[in-house]
């Protein structure tokens, strides 16, 4: 289906507002689940927005954790997964794979700004030395607004202006290619989970990973909440156990020390 100019402008607004939050990571409106939902509302296909958001959210789950690097942009991924699914009529998983170039584009824009804003930090140093709180505040806030504005424009261009080229490009794909993107879309959440594990998995907690996996595989659970509750219980049991071990270890050292003194 086509995105009208009005819808394009509304998408700009969604992009701008969500990018304001992306700059702060405060309300998590930059996450694909929220972005695609809002996009679905303004375009008038909420169901598609929710479906696209769910698929994109899981793939981008761990993507902020890679220390120091800027990952493909989750905001743009959520937005373009929806836009591509809406304009080309493809399945959400296929659209997720096709949204990658746009997420990368936004990633590069992000890197550009993070480099450019080194200049803002240096200007802030000057204001700090002079104790100039007024200019300091204005500069920091305008840096934040400018980046969000550019992201909003990028959303407008990619969704409204580029929809016809995207549509005709995707329509030339043979069935196996489209299905290939769908297969890839099914595997992509593994990237997010792999990244989460990279920072949280260690020798001590590895068994818990298998526990969660086995529960989800063999029990007919409606969602992951029961697993989370069991996780909280196990974490508490582990905490109590560790505390006890540490306390008795402390006692032993004290006793040993005392014993030696007595001996002398």
């Amino acid at each position: 289906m086509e995105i009208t100019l009005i819808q394009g402008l509304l998408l700009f607004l969604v992009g701008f507002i969500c990018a304001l939050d992306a700059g702060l990571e405060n309300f998590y409106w930059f996450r694909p689940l929220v972005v695609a939902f809002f996009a679905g509302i303004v375009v008038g296909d909420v169901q598609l927005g929710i479906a696209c958001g769910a698929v994109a959210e899981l793939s981008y789950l761990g993507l902020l954790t890679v220390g120091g690097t800027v990952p493909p942009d989750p905001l743009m991924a959520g937005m373009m997964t929806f836009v591509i699914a809406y304009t080309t009529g493809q399945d959400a998983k296929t659209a997720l794979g096709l949204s990658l170039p746009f997420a990368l584009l936004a990633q590069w824009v992000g890197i550009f700004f993070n480099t450019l804003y080194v200049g803002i930090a240096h200007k802030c140093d000057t204001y700090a030395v002079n104790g100039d709180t007024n200019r300091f505040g204005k500069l920091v806030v305008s840096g934040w607004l400018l980046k969000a504005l550019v992201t909003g424009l990028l959303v407008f261009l990619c969704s409204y202006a580029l929809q016809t080229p995207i549509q005709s490009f995707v329509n030339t794909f043979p069935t196996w290619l489209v299905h290939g993107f769908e297969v890839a879309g099914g595997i992509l959440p593994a990237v997010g989970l792999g990244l989460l594990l990279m920072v949280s998995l260690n020798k001590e907690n590895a068994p818990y990973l298998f526990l969660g996996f086995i529960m989800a595989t063999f029990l007919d659970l409606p969602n992951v909440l029961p697993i989370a509750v069991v996780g909280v219980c196990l974490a508490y049991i582990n905490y109590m156990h560790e505390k006890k071990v540490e306390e008795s270890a402390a006692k032993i050292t004290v006793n040993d020390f005392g014993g030696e003194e007595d001996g002398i």
Partner: protein
Amino acid sequence: MESRKLLKNGKSRGKLTKKDITKMSVLSFLEQASFSFERMQAPGFTLSMLPAAKKIFGDSKEDMAEFMTYNMEFINTEPHMATFLMGLILSMEEHGEDRKLIEGIRNGLFGPFAGLGDAIFWFTVLPISAAICCSLAQDGSILGPLLYIGIWLVAAISRIWFGSFGYKLGVKAVSTISEGTKYITKAAGILGVMVVGGLIPSYISLAFSESLKFGMGEGTTVQSVFDGILPNMLPLAIVFLIYWLFKKKNANVLVIILGIILFGIFMSFLGWM
């Protein structure tokens, strides 16, 4: 009561009210504004504390300049922990603690605090809320995104509590907090890892096509062989493969994503998946 150190212009320090701290916490929503690779969160971090600092320092430009300068040093921490740290810093400034000490505490704590905050919000709240909300969303329920927005709204508002908590504890907090950090990080690790394990079967679809048989016996497909060993073993294997590539091979995220797309296209071309 011990008398507070005077400001550099000889006047006494202004006192903060509960309202000032709440205002600081709300302003701390701007903590990552104008983030840059060199100083990271420093400009926004400094900005959030300015109105409260003005109240403490009054018209002492010299104190304000010193305060802004040390806060413009590099900082990168988890946003909730940043608000907590701001409360801590303002409490110490209000009491006229030695500025070198405050600076040391600021620079020494933001790293460990980042680890703690990430363990709570990034590795625990995010995967669990995303998992629950996405499973609602996949059933087509509008509750999925709404609940997600609600959870993170509460998380954002909780920064007001983090700010006043840091302010109340003041310098006393430092030892207590670093003691608790160890346990919380570990507990969050257990919970997070377990949820990730639970997400693997439901959110990764990786299976061979029903028609792929390789001339095996009647009714046996390649996939049924895998399922016979352990259902969902392919999704589990792919997660470990990616984990290994990241951890041991320092693989680039982009390379892995492109690799998955090429793999998907290739498998589809062969008709195997």
